[in-house]
């Protein structure tokens, strides 16, 4: 196809529409729950007890739900305790020995714990023994 002269607005719109009709089958096969952005929104509405099940659905879901499973506690600098142990905890995680934690938690005096309060103590315990 050869385009001649200047395109006016109407024919441009018609052209774009035609193009989209050709691509139509691609557009329709899009599944909202395979799009990371949308799944992340879903993640913010899922109850805590369902988070782990959702994270195990697929890679995209895992990516979307992982930040919700983990959350961070940041201390006031003066109230920080056991900085060395926390550092080791993070090192341990970096060495891929513990569950995956998002990159963002590796900077700053933070420790990432499970949403489950009982397991939270489990994570702290790890700090003491290692």
């Amino acid at each position, binding site marked *: 196809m050869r385009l001649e002269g200047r395109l006016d*607005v*109407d024919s441009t*719109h018609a052209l*774009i*529409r035609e193009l*989209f*009709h050709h691509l*139509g089958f691609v*557009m329709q096969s*899009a*599944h*909202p*729950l*395979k*799009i990371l*952005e*949308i799944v992340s*929104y*879903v*993640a*913010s*509405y*899922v*109850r*805590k007890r*369902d988070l*782990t*099940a*959702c994270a*195990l*659905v*697929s*890679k995209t*879901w*895992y990516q979307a739900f992982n930040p919700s*499973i983990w959350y961070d506690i940041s201390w006031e600098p003066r109230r920080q305790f056991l900085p060395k142990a926390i550092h080791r905890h993070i090192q341990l995680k970096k060495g891929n020995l*513990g*569950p*995956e934690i998002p990159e963002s938690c590796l900077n700053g005096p933070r420790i990432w714990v*499970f949403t*489950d309060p009982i*397991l939270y103590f*489990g994570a702290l315990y790890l700090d003491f023994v290692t």
Partner: protein
Amino acid sequence: MKVTLESSDGQVFTVDKEVAELSVIIKEMLVIEQANQDHPIPLLNVGAVELAKVIEYCEHHRNDPTIDDDEDYDSRKKPIEMDDWDKQFTIVNKEMMFELILAANSMQVKPLLHLGCRYAADIVKRMSPTEIRDLFQIDDDFTPEEQDKIEWEKQWTKL
């Protein structure tokens, strides 16, 4: 002031400007195309049925305060209000809701997008990963190594 919108299958809808402006995309388009008001705005990946639903939603929520920041939507911190109208609105089958989520996503109608995501979150309540996969037709794309890693993580999260 009126704005005309055109769905992917060529149907034209005329709505008030402030209704259309609930869509971030249209709002931005209107700023750019100020001089060119006599042409309908083409929404090339939104069908007529979905567009009608989206407009219905926007008409009802035209006076709502706009929330631009995604952070404000984090339901665990601050649940968004869902009135009776919204509840009535979400009584549709899941295919329709998925189409609406896609439409809301492409038009960037944030409140509707979040309403749809909330609907999806309600469906997955108390479901196992396999059930969710079957229901939404999502493929299990974890490799065997990742499966092992997940099995290992599972013992941490006490699934």
